[in-house]
């Protein structure tokens, strides 16, 4: 019996529960009892359905978590010398056994002990699955019988069902918390492991980034350097270029659209900006790498500048265009929320439109605009595909936009794409960089949201 079959049986039982509960409740009505059902028959059915489904689901989930642990625990006893092995070797051996039991490929030659362990492992899993099938269905039937007895004229089935639904909704809203928790915990956990191999100071203040560590211990040239400053410098260089495109263009576009444009122009310009925001970043990356970068290089040749094929400039320019809509739509909102009375005040003094905008509206809207720029910066720092495709891999510590630089996100991708070993400093470094990225963007967002909220309060 496979897992999907168990679920199918459970769903059938749930449906049976529903119809049984419903007909039981209608039956009470028909039997001529005086009085009125507290809840509609539907709720009696739904109650019984939940009664069948939820305990069994809880049981199955618990089982699925515990069973592999038990399987590993017992299987380890079949591996000769398991007690004396270090954790990594044992882990490798055990994954061999698992692969073999699943009919996959093993990392080394197959010895007899592994074979025995694998046989045990697959037998254990088979028995576990059978037990799970029998027990979960037994649980479902038992809770069905328990729930069935509760159905009566005055049984508050609706209230029970609503309570269950409410709990389900609370659980759903906690998924968001769990996600954040998962992000924070996994990043911190892996970063701590990384810091056991590389000292914190080297990581934070090191000027050299070259993560090529050895796959095997003792290999020559295995000393990787994990100083993240060149990556941060690259990230900020590209962000700076992007923002110097996005802020003026986005701001002017927002001003024009909210203060000058006729409804028709607004009706064209706004969707265009929205389309810019909707284009996948990989498309921008492709455009930056295959169109913009060669164009810049040719331009450089004309002007006698040396612009490398993968340059911070190409990535930054394209990223800047990508970010225009973020700046413009937020600034648009902010500018629109400046009260009309302020404008009227300036116009009444004989100020021109641009003077009003520059001297009255923009100063009034400044906190909101700062907030939107901060959000845009956070977007630029976390952007991945454009820089992966157009900025390059060389960790140059440079402020020259014509050179190739690399960023935090690029390095996370390079470190984790391809074959990897989960305990090496190289892969762990990716998580440490992820943590840095998370902290930077979170900080920017928190400040931005705070600034924007303060600004809103001012005019609400």
């Amino acid at each position, binding site marked *: 019996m496979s897992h999907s079959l168990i679920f199918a049986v459970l769903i059938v039982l749930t449906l049976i529960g529903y119809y049984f509960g419903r007909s039981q409740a209608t039956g009470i009505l028909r039997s001529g009892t005086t*009085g*009125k*059902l*507290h809840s509609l*028959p539907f709720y009696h059915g739904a109650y019984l359905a939940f009664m069948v489904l939820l305990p069994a689901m809880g049981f199955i989930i618990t089982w699925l978590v515990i069973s592999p642990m038990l399987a590993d625990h017992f299987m380890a006893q079949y591996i000769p010398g398991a007690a004396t092995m270090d954790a990594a070797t044992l882990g490798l051996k055990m994954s061999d056994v698992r692969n073999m039991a699943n009919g996959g490929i093993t990392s080394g030659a197959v010895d007899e002990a592994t074979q025995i362990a694998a046989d045990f492992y697959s037998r254990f899993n088979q028995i576990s699955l059978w037990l799970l099938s029998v027990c979960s269905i037994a649980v479902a039937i038992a809770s069905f019988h328990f729930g069935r007895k509760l159905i009566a004229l*005055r049984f508050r089935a609706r*209230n029970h069902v609503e309570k269950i639904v409410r709990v389900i909704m609370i659980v759903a809203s906690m998924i968001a918390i769990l996600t954040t928790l998962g992000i924070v915990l996994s990043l911190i956990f892996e970063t701590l492991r990384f810091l056991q191999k590389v000292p914190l100071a080297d990581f934070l203040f090191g000027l050299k980034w070259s993560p090529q560590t050895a796959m095997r211990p003792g290999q020559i040239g295995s000393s990787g350097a994990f100083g993240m400053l060149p990556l941060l410098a690259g990230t900020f260089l590209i962000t700076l270029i992007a923002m110097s495109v996005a802020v003026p263009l986005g701001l002017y576009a927002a001003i024009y659209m909210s203060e000058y444009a006729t409804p028709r122009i607004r009706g064209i310009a706004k969707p265009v900006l929205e389309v810019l925001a909707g284009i996948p970043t990989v498309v921008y990356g492709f455009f930056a790498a295959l169109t913009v970068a060669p164009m810049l290089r040719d331009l450089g040749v004309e002007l006698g500048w040396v612009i490398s094929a993968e340059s911070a400039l190409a990535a930054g320019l394209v990223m800047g265009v990508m970010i225009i809509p973020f700046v413009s739509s937020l600034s648009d909102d902010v500018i629109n929320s400046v009260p009309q009375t302020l404008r009227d005040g300036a116009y009444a003094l004989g100020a021109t439109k641009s003077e009003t905008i520059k001297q009255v509206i923009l100063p009034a809207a400044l906190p909101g605009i700062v907030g939107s720029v901060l959000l845009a910066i956070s977007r630029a720092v976390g952007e991945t595909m454009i820089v992966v495709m157009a900025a390059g891999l060389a960790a140059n510590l440079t402020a020259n936009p014509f050179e190739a630089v690399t960023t935090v996100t690029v390095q996370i991708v390079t470190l984790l794409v391809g074959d990897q070993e989960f305990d090496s400093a190289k892969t762990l470094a990716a998580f440490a960089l992820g943590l840095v990225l998370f902290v930077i963007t979170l900080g920017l967002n928190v400040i931005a949201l705070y600034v924007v909220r303060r600004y809103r309060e001012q005019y609400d």
Partner: protein
Amino acid sequence: MSISTQEKPAVASPKTSSSDVKIAAKDVCVFYGEKQALFNVNLDIAANQVISLIGPSGCGKSTFLRSINRMNDVVPSCRVEGLITLEGQDIYDPEIDVVELRARVGMVFQKPNPFPKSIYDNVAYGPRIHGQATGKAELDEIVERSLQRAGLWNEVKDRLESPGTGLSGGQQQRLCIARAIAVSPEVILMDEPCSALDPIATARVEELIDELRQNFTIVIVTHSMQQAARVSQRTAFFHLGILVEEGDTDQIFTRPSDERTQDYITGRFG
């Protein structure tokens, strides 16, 4: 099964008092957060009559109305103290299911608020969720009877499937009344039911209220003293969260015992 013979919900306990008091409020205080909106209100409401609650804006009359069917429960900061009984039973008793209470105490709101569904579905919604009809035929009968009682049947009988929001304001309000009486409540609460209507529609609704008195106990909040005089047998005057006085409508409007009532009905404030 017709509406009038329908059984009362089983929670209803036998009447406790000898008189036919339907609703009794004892020392009712209502708080919104820190702010107290009602102060020790004591009021008995007799069955099968119309009582008007009058008073200046913000005097607590709507607050009192909304505590009778526990509509205040949805306001998170709201707290009700004291005792309100429906046929002798405490309606704030944790044993009471608020849904059943609201089926017994219906409500009509200030602005007509039909569901954006068909006229039929508007009226049928209550009986459906309370399981008051066992079949389509019975539901049809309830809908027709309720619309007839609300005086709307002749106007809408040919377009029961068209949306309720397409009716005129006065018709919408009568639809809301039909929706309220479709679940055959014992009490109907009306929160300024005519304030959004024109004079002709208002007259129709007032007539309707008078007819409904035969079968229901009606509590109506109104801003218009003329309306109170026209439709109600009893009148209660609220001021700054205090029930100032309550009595026969004639008496309140001709010989009020309290000076504040006198000032209000002669138009000195409010």
